[in-house]
């Protein structure tokens, strides 16, 4: 059995949620049936993704041939040290958010839309994992669209809670489609240049052509900008705050921790293994354009986060700033930079997912969306607030939390290149993070709870979130601390392996 998973696992983790999405969509609206199906699927996918990661660690990079067709003509799934951990990350976050989903979706999504909701969720999972594991450039586009379209639907389902979800979803749809279109146009140029869609093949041909002609450069531009839009690179992030603020909690948490991360993975893949920083135009663009936008985005989006009144919008802008950190790691074009970027990708997925889940629990109990409404939460929802606090510390980068590990790694990478100003920017953005997260915690800890939270005897009544919500939140908070304390052992190795695959030569 397990040998079957070892040989076919890579395909299984894409096909299973894809097929089950269809079945889930048709399930009757019995209260928990759709949820339970989706959760089982996600757990299975996570387990198999873990097996795939273990296989990858044991045997190294391997290729799964779809239907036995040999690449470059057939479609292949290429598993290596870069995408195997990310596939597991996506599957694991799906499990976390789906555990949480039972009470959350119950209150946020109309009853008749619940089965379609879980179907769309599974589709998104399938699309995201698919675009991560595939070795075929056009296949990437297909899965990108599978995940995007299901995501637009999921965002729009927040309309039951807040009508603005509809306009946010529309906005996301337009911009997401522009991004996908740019990406596919880029693939088209690359196909014209190389005559292949297999990414490994493309890499070899482009290297032979020494970067290729103008067509390859134009393709590069389109791919970069298209992916930049998908991963919310500043200033192409305008779709993100609306989509994150108004979609159902589960969707926000899942998107924040996986969708932009999968797009970022594609950026790694295309910038470093299809194209190569040894081509002048790649190196210059990464060094000046991507780094520049990363740095401006870190500061600018942090300032935007600082002045928001809506808690989820604050976290959404913070996500844009954090993407800046990861892009800075790419822009450094060094092994250390990629290690830091990759670490921050994983850490931010854990942290931001957990933060959105905590905020969702606060909405679930008290209908809180504004920061000023968070008053007294430390007394009314102590466990949720504790998890929120730990995760917030991690986002800020307090020692012994996940954020600290990756920010230090990035700062070290910047120092290695002699970019002292980049270290300063990391510091400033972290201070801004302290301010905007501190603002929420100040209210939660030091403002008295509203009168409605008091019992008859004038004492504060505890109304903690249900167990199914608490488990994933606390789990993610504990994970972030574990990464902070022991991350240098295991995660660092994963990141170094990934960085070594991406930049075998060690960068500039």
């Amino acid at each position, binding site marked *: 059995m397990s040998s079957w998973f070892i040989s076919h696992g890579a395909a299984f983790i894409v096909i299973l949620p894809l097929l089950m999405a269809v079945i889930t969509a048709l399930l009757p609206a019995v209260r928990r049936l759709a949820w339970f199906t989706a959760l089982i699927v996600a757990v299975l996918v996570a387990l198999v993704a873990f097996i795939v990661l273990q296989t990858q660690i044991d045997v190294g990079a391997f290729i799964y041939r779809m239907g036995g067709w040999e690449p470059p003509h057939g479609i292949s799934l290429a598993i290596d040290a870069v995408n195997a951990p990310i596939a597991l990350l996506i599957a694991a976050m799906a499990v976390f958010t789906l555990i949480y989903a039972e009470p959350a979706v119950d209150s946020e999504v109309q009853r008749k839309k619940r089965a379609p909701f879980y179907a769309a969720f599974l589709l998104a999972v399938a699309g995201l994992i698919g675009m991560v594991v595939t070795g075929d450039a056009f296949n990437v586009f297909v899965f990108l669209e599978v995940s995007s379209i299901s995501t637009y639907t999921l965002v729009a389902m927040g309309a039951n809670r807040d009508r603005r979800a509809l*306009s*946010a979803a*529309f*906005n996301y749809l*337009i*911009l997401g489609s*522009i*991004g996908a279109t*740019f990406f596919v146009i880029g693939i088209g140029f690359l196909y014209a240049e190389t005559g292949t869609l297999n990414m490994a093949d493309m890499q070899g041909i482009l290297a032979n052509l020494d*970067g290729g002609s*103008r067509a390859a*450069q*134009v393709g*590069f*531009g*389109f791919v*970069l*900008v298209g992916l*930049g*839009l998908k991963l919310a690179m500043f*200033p*192409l992030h*305008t*779709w993100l*705050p*609306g989509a994150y603020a108004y979609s159902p909690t589960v969707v926000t948490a899942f998107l924040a921790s996986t969708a932009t991360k999968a797009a970022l993975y594609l950026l790694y893949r295309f910038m470093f293994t299809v194209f190569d920083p040894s*081509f*002048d*135009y790649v*190196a*210059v*663009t990464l060094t*000046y*354009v991507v780094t520049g936008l990363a740095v401006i985005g870190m500061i*600018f989006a942090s*300032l*935007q986060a*600082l*002045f*928001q*009144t*809506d808690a989820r*919008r604050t976290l959404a*802008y913070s996500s844009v700033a954090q993407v800046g950190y990861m892009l800075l790691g790419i822009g450094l074009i060094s092994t250390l930079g990629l290690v830091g970027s990759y670490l921050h990708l994983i850490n931010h997925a854990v942290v931001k997912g957990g933060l959105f889940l905590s905020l969702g629990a606060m909405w679930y109990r008290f209908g809180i969306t504004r920061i000023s409404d968070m008053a007294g939460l430390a007394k009314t929802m102590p466990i949720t607030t504790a998890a929120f606090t730990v995760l917030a510390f991690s986002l800020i980068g307090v020692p012994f939390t996940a954020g600290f590990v990756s920010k230090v790694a990035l700062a070290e990478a910047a120092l290695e290149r002699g970019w002292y100003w980049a270290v300063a920017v990391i510091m400033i953005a972290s201070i801004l993070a302290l301010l905007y997260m501190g603002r929420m915690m100040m209210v939660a800890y030091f403002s008295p709870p509203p009168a409605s939270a008091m019992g008859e005897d004038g004492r504060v009544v505890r109304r903690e979130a249900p167990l199914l919500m608490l488990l994933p939140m606390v789990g993610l908070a504990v994970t972030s601390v574990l990464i902070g304390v022991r991350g240098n052992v295991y995660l660092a190795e994963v990141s170094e392996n990934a960085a070594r695959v991406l930049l075998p030569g060690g960068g500039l």
Partner: protein
Amino acid sequence: MIDLLQINPGLWVILAGVIAALMPVGPVRKALAIGAPILAAFLIFTIYDSTEVLAGQFSVLGVELTTLRIDNLSVVWGYLFCLAGFINAVYALHEDSWITDSSALVYTGAAIAGVLSGDWLSLFLFWELTAISSVFLVWQGGAHAYAAGIRYLVIQVLSGVLLLAGAVMFAGANGGDWTFGYVGLETTGAAGWVLLIAMGIKAGFPMLHMWMQDAYPKASITGTVILASFTTKFAIYALARAFPGTDILIWIGCIMTCFPVFFAVIENDLRRVLAYSLNNQLGFMVAGIGIGSTMAMNGVVGQVFVHVIFKGLLFMSIGAVMYRVGTAKASELGGLFRSMPYTTVLCLIGAGSIAAFPLLAAFVTKAMILQAAIDAKLWIPFTMMLFASAGVMEHSGIKVPHFTFFAHDSGRRVKEAPWNMLAAMSIAAVLCIVLAWPWGGYDILYSLMPYETDYKPYTWDHVVFQLQLLFAAIFAFNVLKRFKLYPAERRAEVVDADVLYRRVGKNMAVWTDAMWTRLGARLKRGRDRATASVGRKLSQAFSPAGRMSEAAPSGLPAILTAGLLAVVLVVAYIAAA
């Protein structure tokens, strides 16, 4: 299981202090205070085997630490501080003070641990701990001691910071060797000077000495006794270790012996007189370290040893008087020999010791330092120290007992000092006599000295010379008294160099503060306006309604996307061209 003998014995005393700080039962605290120094002395005895013992090594952040070093130099201070801690504890038995007991123990332990530590970092740690733990003893003196305590703490901590800075520079120049050893001034440059000043502050170098006369007289009765035992002697140890034979110390030491004489003669507060005399005694030691010959170093070690005992005895006797009478002002005392006969006798033994009467403690050791100066043909320093010796006789040997126990009768009739004070003083007095006993007594002292010596102090010419000197001083005192030329005991404050920071400096600080407040109000208004304006602008730009954060329709981002594509294409075009 770590070897308990690897642990610096001073740490056990500090531990006892910590326990005492948590211990509400007075008798238990007293038992700790007496027992801990004895235990530490026993441990030193067990560990030391007449060669250099290094132990407790470990490394922190790449710095090799040697937390325990007992050799022929540090062992003397180790025993001495244990002895002093024991005597002080006996002296303080009557006082039921939680703070005194615990901070005295920590202070004693820090001093013991400090002299027994073998690297700069441990030294710095205990250097600062002595400062921090002892300031509580100053504050025990009451409300009027608070400011003096703060000044004391600031100066002591400054000394510690300088020590650390110098140590870092020194270790850096030595390729990361943190062993606390010889420094000197010839080859070490700035590091040596910084270290010298750091130690000089604690040792009471001229112009750096004021904290001593400022803080010691203001501390509580037992506090002064305890304070006078350790801090300065700790610094002398550091100097003896780091700067033996450094020429400039001869002159510093000689000035130190001379200038306090004048202050001590006119000062009214007898505890302050003793603080000046302490300074003068330290001068002999510093000068001896400066000479640096075998004889001089032996003299210094012996002098430190007996000095702690007789200086403690003097402070204890004045403390006993203060305990019964309530004051230590010369102008309000006198004629107490009638009511406190034992204290009188003990004080006289202390006074005779400090003045170096034959058969009493300092006679042997001071002679060795002076002899070393003669051997080195240092005539001017010799003369200065000779003058200072007469001065010691004048202010400590005569003035203190005279104005306290004799002189005009103040009419006070009080009880004799408590038994524990008498016991503590008696121990010290017996030691003063034993350690200078011509028939074998001073050999005990010799056995502690770092170098072999067969110096014979009791030669006819030396005894006669010393007696001549002392009687000349007594004669001068009597003549001056007879013709009313000796400064009478008056209530007055003596202006010393500390006026620089207590008056001038403070006034300047107050003036600057007032000006700064005025200027600050202006600046603050401007700054507030500026920050408010920046904050408002940022908020206008980035708040949800602001231009930078408003929910953009999809048209604008689409144009932005196209614009960014154009930028990327242009950059790629230029880069590839």
